[in-house]
């Protein structure tokens, strides 16, 4: 047998650090400790994704989490996703208003175009709007012509800016899917931070052709969809995941400097009547501790940058 082509035993990037140049290798506990405003121990950063899944999804190059599943027309999944924007988000608003939490809403451009008042409802509460691509069927991937990808980003930002008053500084790709050029293009479009990479609990600098951009921690694990839908765990498991996660970060922050508790939510998942209280329980636990700073992504970014 002839074996594999020779390249399988060649390692052109076997070297110190990473096997690419987007960011440097860095060890979390060996970094300069971070100080948050008022010496908070944990910055609580919640992102709520406001998404539109078109019913004629092409799923190119793959179907994102939450995509249509039956043959066309999949009324069932289409309307349940839409439930998040009509109903679920309003339960979240009520909960967060009561707790004094301002979140970052990651909004598809199409959602801003279809429901501008939803964007305004976020901003009236002091929430931040960040860009979440055009819609859930416009993924960013290698093979998408660069001009098309650039246009998708421009369309997204134009839709958001028409509906929003505040600046758009952050980016979350639909399904966290990127092409090799996405980081370059979003930096070129003036965005300052990106939420796609899940390799850190804290911000870190990334390189792009248009200058540096900051990677903000936006875990795929501490997420309602991952825990409740993908892993089929219980509502109590979700509460425990949030409180256990927070407790460890809070303890760690006592000796290692400020930490970020980043929670990613989807109103069509967590906004169900039987689930919303599990989120409330966890948030009350978190907010009962001293030294918790509930902030938006942009506020956390600014505080982090000021200390670098």
């Amino acid at each position, binding site marked *: *047998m*002839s*074996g*594999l*082509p020779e*390249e*399988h*035993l060649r*390692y052109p*990037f*076997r*070297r*110190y*650090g*990473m*096997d*690419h140049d987007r960011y440097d*290798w*860095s*060890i*979390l*506990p*060996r970094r300069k400790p971070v100080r948050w405003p008022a010496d908070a121990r944990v910055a609580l950063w919640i992102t709520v994704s406001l998404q539109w899944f078109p019913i004629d999804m092409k799923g190119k*190059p*793959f179907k994102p989490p939450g995509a249509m599943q039956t043959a066309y027309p999949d009324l069932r999944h289409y309307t349940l996703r839409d439930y998040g924007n009509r109903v679920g988000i309003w339960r979240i608003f009520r909960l967060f208003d009561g707790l004094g939490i301002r979140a970052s809403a990651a909004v598809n451009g199409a959602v801003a175009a279809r429901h501008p008042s939803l964007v305004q409802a976020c901003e009236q509460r002091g929430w931040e709007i960040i860009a979440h691509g055009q819609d859930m069927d416009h993924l960013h*991937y*290698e*093979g998408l012509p660069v001009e098309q990808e650039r246009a998708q980003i421009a369309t997204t930002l134009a839709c958001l800016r028409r509906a929003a008053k505040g600046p758009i500084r952050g980016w979350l*790709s639909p*399904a*966290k*899917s*990127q*092409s*090799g050029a996405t980081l370059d293009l979003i930096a070129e479009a003036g965005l300052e931070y990106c939420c*796609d*990479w*899940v*390799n*850190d*609990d804290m911000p870190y600098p990334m390189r792009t052709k248009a200058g540096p951009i900051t990677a903000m921690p936006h875990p*795929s*694990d*501490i997420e309602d969809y991952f*825990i409740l839908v*993908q*892993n089929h*765990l*219980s509502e109590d*498991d979700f509460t*425990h*995941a*949030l409180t*256990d*996660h*927070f*407790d*460890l*970060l809070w303890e*760690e922050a006592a000796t290692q400097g400020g930490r970020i508790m980043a929670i990613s939510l989807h109103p069509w998942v967590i906004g169900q009547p039987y689930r919303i209280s599990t989120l409330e329980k966890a948030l009350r636990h978190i907010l009962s501790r001293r030294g918790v700073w509930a902030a938006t992504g942009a506020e956390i970014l600014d505080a982090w940058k000021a200390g670098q």
Partner: protein
Amino acid sequence: MPWRDPGYYDWLPYNETRPRITWPNGARVAFWVAPNIEFYELDPPRNPARAAWARPHPDVLAYSYRDYGNRVGFWRMLEVMDRCGVRGSVSLNVAMCEHHPEIIEECAKRGWEFYSHGTYNTRYLFGMSEEQEREVIRDSIETIRKHTGQKLDGWLAPALTYTERTLDLVAEMGLTYVCDLFHDDQPSPVKTRTGTLVSIPYSLEMNDTIAYNVNQVGPRAYGEILRRQFDRLYEEGAESGTVMCIPLHPYLIGWPYRLKAFEEALRYITSHDKVWLATGREIAQHFIAHHLEAFKAASVPVGEAP
């Protein structure tokens, strides 16, 4: 002709016909923790039998999810193991020695063992020629010796990928134990062309990847699984020594929401007095020195399937 049975072991059921295993100091369970310290490449050459990533290149989500283990998760896992007084037996993608020597240094400082888990977790053995596979094993032996001074004794194939020759070559090149076979809760002889090779129980069931990514259990349930596994092996270990392994991945166990339940389970296990906190190498050496011949003698050939 492809195998119908890999033929690595004879028949020796888990009953009274099996020779009794004794561990040092009368321990009932030889307990070892095997952190998989891995490097996944963003854009490896594509093995014809398996793609490295589910999504098209660049699979930012899956790649960065694993990178979390080295930047963040490893360091938290290390603290937990220190607090519980447990040494690791590192299942090492040896290219980690070049990429992240700081991690290797911390493990070496604590007297942890290094065994090979291939070069990268994105380079698979499927389809390799004999010479290519030898080259991979040689690379592992040399890289581990160069960076840690240790002789390579153990093997867990990268991403559990194999050829029909893998275990023969591993034995021929002087390694003494493998973690690739899941047929037993005690060590057992492995039949290879040459050399002396034993299988040390590793466990997919206790593996955090299987628990979290395949069986999709929650962290507290994982802690309960570990405790129940231990309780039964500790009970059975009164009759004949058993082995319990917890294979870990820092990119999974190192998440804040998973650590506490793991630490509680580890504390529970290590609080028992008849537990031998061992490394893979120590278990293999003890078994080879004291029990291998008796196990071979008690084994009987497997009959021919029709």
